[in-house]
């Protein structure tokens, strides 16, 4: 639990072994090759570049969001926020359920694209254990999901400086997508 919290908050000081990481983008390739030339056979592996940390952090947060959406959908509490209590009928649940499913699909696409840009050895591929976010038990309502989306969007934009151009564009696009989830979910609330 504690380790999960550290990973999700990006504050972990000693994460998984950080060797043999590379960003799967053309922009990062020259830097990686240069690093290879400078490392002796048994020398200390160089620290990962900042973009690897940013990418790993984004993957962890995206994984947590997916787990949160799955938990809210499974809990059936998707209509217990925001809308007038008396209007939370079956139609409202269906509309919100469809909206949650659409947003969840977006996040799964985000995660797939982020993961495609980070290649790690199999032994280190589970930086965020499955279900970590749900075990944290923090996000239970749609209103909390909306807040998490805003936080995630701002976090990605704050990390843009210094990233390779293609990764920065991916972060910016995902940040935009996540921001749009808020009005989309709000429009699906019962009574709207």
């Amino acid at each position: 639990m504690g380790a999960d919290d550290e990973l999700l908050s990006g504050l972990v000081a000693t994460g998984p072994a950080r060797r043999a990481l590379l960003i799967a983008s053309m922009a990062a390739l020259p830097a990686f090759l240069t690093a290879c030339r400078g490392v002796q056979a048994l020398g200390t592996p160089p620290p990962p570049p900042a973009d690897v940390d940013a990418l790993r952090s984004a993957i962890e947060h995206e994984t947590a969001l997916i787990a949160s959406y799955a938990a809210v959908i499974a809990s059936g509490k998707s209509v217990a926020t925001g809308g007038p209590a008396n209007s939370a009928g079956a139609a409202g649940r269906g509309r919100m359920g469809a909206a949650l499913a659409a947003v969840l699909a977006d996040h799964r696409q985000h995660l797939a694209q982020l993961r495609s840009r980070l290649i790690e050895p199999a032994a280190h591929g589970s930086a965020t254990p499955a279900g970590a976010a749900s075990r944290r038990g923090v996000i239970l309502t749609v209103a909390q999901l909306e807040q998490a989306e805003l936080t995630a969007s701002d976090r990605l934009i704050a990390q843009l400086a210094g990233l390779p151009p293609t990764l920065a564009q991916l972060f910016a696009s995902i940040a935009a997508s996540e921001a749009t989830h808020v009005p989309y979910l709000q429009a699906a609330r019962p009574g709207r």
Partner: protein
Amino acid sequence: MTSASGSTSSRPAGTPPVIAALQSALAAELATCYGYGIVGARLPQGSAEQAAASTDWVAHMRARDHLSALITARGATPTPAAVAYELPGPVRTPAAARALAATLEDRVAQAYLALVALPDSSLRRLGAEQVRAAALRAQPWRGSVQAFPGLPPASLHG
């Protein structure tokens, strides 16, 4: 979203890639300002949607002016607007107007992503915030969400 002040103590660098990206974003904004006139004309008079189109149109005019100022501050001349722009298709109904608005926002988002690729962190942030603003405007017009606003499908892995 966009800061109105782009002033700095010294004149910012206007390298060709920076100017090209700013001009590209400006061209997208100019076309979008034109397009929203068509959108507004095809939505029901006095409707909430027409008011929303007007609000979005104003946002794009402000963004246009901001980009022009950024280009001028870098010693270049902002590209002027064209008299008319080719539309992606006929716009005869409110549904077509909504689709056009969403398309306009998609194109603006794509243009601003070019700013995100620049090394200048302030332009990068401006680009990202404008991609987000465009996506937020596009969402109600489209009525759905997109996983990757502004990114061409060909740029995605897999």
